[in-house]
Structures are given as structure tokens and as C-alpha cells.
């Protein structure tokens, strides 16, 4: 008894300390004040035109979530406000690399979203992998990012570059060839995005038995802004169909130069008119787009989402938030919204905020999530394969109608259109 009396003050202190530590541990499991989403955007430089719409739209989604009390986080069983930390990498890959590290090591973000486009995404991929941080990749479609030995990436809003042009080469080998377009010229900007697409198209058109012949095949620097000589060179090979694959600036320059040159081809395909339609209409005009083939994105489809807004609802909200004269609403703004939706669903399904659980939650959405761009579906390596990119053709009023594949077609393709 005496011994107990001697030791009980010490035992009491020990008990209090242990209780304090346990209470501290319990506090660590309490919900955080906010969920930090780390993101990079290019506020200036060559990638600003594709990056800023993604950023603005993601920011809008975060604001909408916070206006409703935050996003539902399954790990804590309640809504928690979101905090978007987005740095401007000024389109500089070196700065993007440093800032990716900053988000991981200094800001200690819960979720990491890289910048748009393959060049800026490329630097974030190894850094995220090194830190075992799952990378939410909105639009970096370079095929090299996705490999089975890297579980730390998923492409959210664009199909991977090798899958994207599938309908294009099918169209060229079927309907277009049947309508007389058998000689194809392939002109592309030499970057990961369009270069990979060109490789896929070339391989498909050169398959045995292909009714299509490639008569011109040339890559040009992405910085190309004058296509006059190239158009004359293409015309000299007498193609029926010209495919020009570039970024927004390339497509604008090509279509303007084509109008000015007076050269006529039976069919012209360019990449961005169906993706950033407003920008192309403003810079090239409806007459410059008349008859042009392009990819049809959610902008030209009437897909009914099971989650999130429709295209028109998003357009209205985007234009209300950023007004006239701001960043144009287009495909990349939709990509930003889809990024937000995937993040929201990930938080709603992940058992914890650990990176493996976040990954499991993202891959668990594959094939089940239907947004305004179609079905979210991931390959094992994280590449996006579920979204649709049918082929469309512009009319004289600047409207695009789906012409391929037949199950989505709302109009017939016209080869030899003005």
C-alpha cells in the first residue's frame, strides 16, 4: 500500500501524458480545415491559350463547391472546403518543375494537378512519381507519360494521343475514300500532342489494303506561323485531302494562309476548329471554316451528363464568371470542369487522402463516370480511352455537324465542299 502511495503521483502524470498523446493522435484524424489542391497554370507564353481556360474552369468548379460548403470527403464523412493553390509557370518547363516540387514539398497539397499540354506535363510526371504523389493530368496526352510501371498518373479530360485520331483514320479509309479522297497530305506540328497523332494516322493509312495514299508527309516546328510556302508545296503533290495538325495558333495561321493562297483542296481537316470553336471563328471567320473537317468535342455533341453541368450550363456559368473579353470558352474550359468533377468524385469515394487510396478511387471511377465529355475510362497505365472524338464538318454558318462515325452522324460528309 505504501509503495502504491509512493508511485501514484508518477502514475497519474504518466496517465495524463498518455491520454494527451492519444488525444493528439485523435486530433490528427480530425478533418482538416480544407483540402489543398495544388495546380500549375501558364499565365503567359505559348501554352497560355490552352492552360488558362483549364485553370479558370477548375477555379470556377472549386468556387461552386465551396459555395455549397465544400466537397464531400468520404474519409471524414462530411463536406470540407477546397483550397486551390495554383502557381503561374509562365509556360516555362523549368519553372513548372520547380513549382511542382514547391506544391509537394512546401505547400504539402493533398491533390496534385499538373499544367496543360504535354511539354509542361512532362516535367511534373517524374517529380510526382519520385514523391509517390498521384498526378491528376488534365490534358497532357503524350503517350510516353503512361507506362505500367508508373502508377502515379491518370489522364482526365483528353483521350491519349494514340487513341484520339481513331475516328479520323477510320473516316479517311472508309467514307472519305469512297467519296474520292484517296490522296492525303499530312502536315503536322512537331510536338508530343500532334506528332503522336500524326504517327498513329500514318501507321493506320499505311496498313496493307488501305485505299488511301499519303502523298505529302512533313512535320514543322510548332512555332510555325506562315504556311504559304508549305501550302504551295502541298498543292504541288496534288492531294485530295489535306490534314493539318497543330495547336490553335498553327491552325489559325494555316487556315488564313489557305484562304489567302487561293489554293483549293477537296477536303481539309484541321484539329482545333472543333476544339476551340469560338477562337477559330473569331480569327478565321465562318467562311474560312466552311467545309473544313475537325474533331467534334462535347461542344458539338449533346451528351447528357450524369454528373456536373451540361455544356450550355457550363458555358453560361463560365461566361458569367469571366465575362466578355476574358478567356474564351472552349474545349479546354470543359477539360478544367471535368478535372474538377473527377477530383470531386475521387474525394467522395477515397477511403483516405493517402495517395494509394486516391489512385484506387480514381481508377474505381473508370467506366462509371459519365460527364459532359462522355464516359471517363482509364487504361491500366492511366491513359484516358473513354471519351469520344467523332469527325465533324463545318457549314457556311460556322456550325459543325457530326459526319462520322455513322452511329453519331447528323449529316453526310461532303468532299469538294467550298
Amino acid at each position, binding site marked *: 500500500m505504501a509503495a502504491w502511495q509512493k508511485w501514484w503521483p508518477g502514475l497519474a502524470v504518466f496517465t495524463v501524458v498518455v491520454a494527451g498523446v492519444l488525444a493528439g493522435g485523435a486530433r490528427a484524424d480530425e478533418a482538416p480545415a480544407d483540402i489543398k489542391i495544388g495546380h500549375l497554370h501558364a499565365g503567359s507564353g505559348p501554352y497560355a491559350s490552352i492552360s488558362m481556360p483549364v485553370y479558370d474552369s477548375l477555379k470556377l468548379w472549386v468556387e461552386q463547391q465551396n459555395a455549397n460548403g465544400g466537397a464531400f470527403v468520404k474519409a471524414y464523412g462530411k463536406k470540407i472546403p477546397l483550397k486551390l493553390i495554383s502557381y*503561374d509557370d509562365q509556360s516555362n*518547363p*523549368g519553372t513548372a518543375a*520547380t513549382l*511542382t*516540387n514547391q506544391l509537394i*514539398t512546401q505547400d504539402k497539397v493533398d491533390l496534385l494537378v499538373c499544367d496543360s499540354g504535354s511539354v509542361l506535363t*512532362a516535367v511534373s510526371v*517524374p517529380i510526382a512519381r519520385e514523391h509517390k504523389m498521384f498526378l491528376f493530368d488534365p490534358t497532357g496526352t503524350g503517350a510516353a507519360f503512361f507506362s505500367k510501371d508508373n502508377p502515379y498518373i491518370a489522364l482526365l479530360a483528353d483521350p491519349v494521343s494514340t487513341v484520339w485520331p481513331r475516328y479520323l483514320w477510320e473516316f479517311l479509309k472508309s467514307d472519305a475514300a469512297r467519296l474520292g479522297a484517296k490522296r492525303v497530305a499530312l502536315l503536322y506540328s*512537331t510536338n508530343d500532342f500532334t506528332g503522336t497523332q500524326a504517327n498513329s494516322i500514318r501507321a493506320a493509312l499505311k496498313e496493307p489494303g488501305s485505299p488511301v495514299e499519303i502523298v505529302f508527309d512533313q512535320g514543322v516546328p510548332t512555332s510555325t506561323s506562315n504556311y504559304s510556302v508549305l501550302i504551295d508545296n502541298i498543292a504541288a503533290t496534288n492531294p485530295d485531302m489535306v490534314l493539318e495538325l497543330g495547336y490553335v495558333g498553327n491552325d489559325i495561321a494555316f487556315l488564313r494562309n489557305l484562304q489567302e493562297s487561293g489554293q483549293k483542296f477537296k477536303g481539309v481537316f484541321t484539329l482545333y476548329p472543333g476544339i476551340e470553336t469560338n477562337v477559330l471563328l473569331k480569327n478565321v471567320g465562318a467562311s474560312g471554316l466552311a467545309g473544313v473537317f475537325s474533331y467534334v468535342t462535347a461542344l458539338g455533341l449533346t451528351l447528357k451528363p450524369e454528373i456536373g453541368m451540361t455544356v450550355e450550363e457550363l458555358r453560361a456559368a463560365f461566361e458569367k464568371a469571366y465575362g466578355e473579353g476574358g478567356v474564351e470558352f472552349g474545349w479546354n474550359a470543359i477539360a478544367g470542369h471535368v478535372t474538377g468533377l473527377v477530383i470531386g468524385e475521387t474525394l467522395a469515394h477515397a477511403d483516405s487522402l493517402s495517395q494509394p487510396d486516391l489512385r484506387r478511387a480514381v481508377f474505381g471511377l473508370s467506366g462509371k463516370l459519365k460527364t459532359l465529355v462522355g464516359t471517363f475510362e482509364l487504361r491500366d497505365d492511366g491513359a484516358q480511352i473513354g471519351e469520344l472524338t467523332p469527325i465533324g464538318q463545318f457549314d457556311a454558318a460556322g456550325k459543325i455537324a457530326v459526319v462520322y462515325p455513322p452511329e453519331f452522324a447528323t449529316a453526310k460528309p461532303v468532299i469538294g465542299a467550298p
Partner: protein
Amino acid sequence: MRDFLSVGLPVVAIFALLPLVYANQLLLFNFVLFLILAQGLNAIYGFTGYLPFGYVGFFGAGAYGFALAVMHLAAPPALALLLAGLAALVLAMILTPLLRLSGAYFAIANLAAAQAVYQVIANPALQDITKGPYGVSLASVFAPRASYGAALLILAGVLALVAWLRHGRFGLALQAGRDDPVSAAMAGIPVVSSRIIAWLISALIAGLAGGVFAWHISVFYPETAFDLSTSIFAIVFTLFGGAATLSGPIAGVILLYGLYNLIGISVPQYFQLIYGALIVGLVLFLPRGLASLLQRRGVDVP
């Protein structure tokens, strides 16, 4: 050696210890990289007066030398680093005739040469060799800690070299040739061959920096390796601190690159305005760099 022990070694030691207290190792790596490049530029500009605007050409050659060695020879990183230096050295030997030019003509010709190398590397026709414009991925050798350590070793070597140039016979000969080439030649100094050696040393340093950059970042595109802003930064940091000193370029990198990151991260919307105004102000009011403030007062700046 005194300069190296009093200035160079502490800088290396600080950057060796900083990762223990600051986790953004890539930022620290960039500091080390620019410390190497600024001293490499110092070796040619500070000691001969030749300002190579296309200095990034050697850096890019080093980065691609490393990448090609890893991709095609399966070289281990240490050997690939040596080959990176060798690639820059070979390029410098090819470009040696540029030293016949001087002043702005040399700067512009050098810039054009760097662009020409970039266009060759990024040419889609060379995709099988260089991966063309589609960039390289060196995931098999990605090792941020080891490459950071290698960068520190290169930095230590470069600082020791510049410290030797400042007081050694060869460095003094270079400075004599820079200040008055005719008198120096009449005094028996081989001005041309000394200049060529300084040019090769400077290219070798940039090549090693490019190689260790390729190793550290592991995924990059030609426009990243040949980014003109790399040259501009190295020049600005060297000029700001004071060329032909060991501590000037170090001060330039620490202050200006520190400020660059501070502004770039906290108020990016004002970045270009603030940084541009700062550089214009420095060029107008402090053209010989910070070191000149002390040198005017008779202080021997290491």
C-alpha cells in the same frame, strides 16, 4: 586557393546541408546549376571579355550528350556525365573560329550557332537518334539525390578552377589579353591560344551542367535544354555580381535567382515588370556589378 577556401568551400557546404532543412530539392538544384553556369560564363567573359549569348548551346549539347549516352550506349550516369562534357567540348572546338569575331558580332554569331544546334537536335528527321522534338525520357537513371551530389561536386571543381584563374599564371595572362591584347602579345603571352583554352574550359563547364541537369530532371524537350533564358540568366547573374571575381557571380545567383523565385511564386502577375525594372536599373546604375561597389573603396573582392 585562399579564395576557394574562404568563399567557394562554404558555398558548397551550405548547399550540401540545405536539403536537410529545406525539402524543395529541385529549387536548390537550380541554384547549384546556375552557380555552375554563372562561373562557367565568368571563365570566358570575366577573363577574356568575350560574352557568349548562345552559352546555352553548350548546356544543351551537354544535356543531349548525357541523354544519347544513356539511351544508345546504356552508359552509367557517371560516364554519361563525362560524355556530356565531351559533347560540349567538341561543339566548342567546332565553333572556335567564332573567336575571330569580337563584341556584339561574337555574341550574335554565338547565339545563332546555339540556335542551329537546337534546330539540328529538334529535327524530326533525327527522331531515331535524338527523339527529335518529342523530348527524351531517362527514367532508367532518374536519381535526384545522386545527381544533386554530382552537381555539388561539379560546383566545387568549377569554383576551385575560377579561384585558380583569378590568381594563377594562366588566369593573369588571360586578363592581360582581355585588357590590352596587343601589349600582352608583345610581352610574350600567347593571347589566341589562351583564349581558346578559356573558351573550351567554359564550354566544358556548361556541358557538365547540361549533363547533370539531364540526369536530375530526366524528362525534357529540346526547347527546355536550349531555352535562351538559361543564357540570359547566367549572363545577368554574372554581370550583377561582378565578373572576373569568384564571389560576384555567387552573389548574383543567390540574390537574383532568390528574388526570381520569391517574386515568381508569390506575385507572378508582377514578375516580369519587377524583374525587368530591376535589371534595367542595375545595368544603368551598377554596370560593373555589386563587386564594383567594394572595389571602388579599395576592397579586394575575392
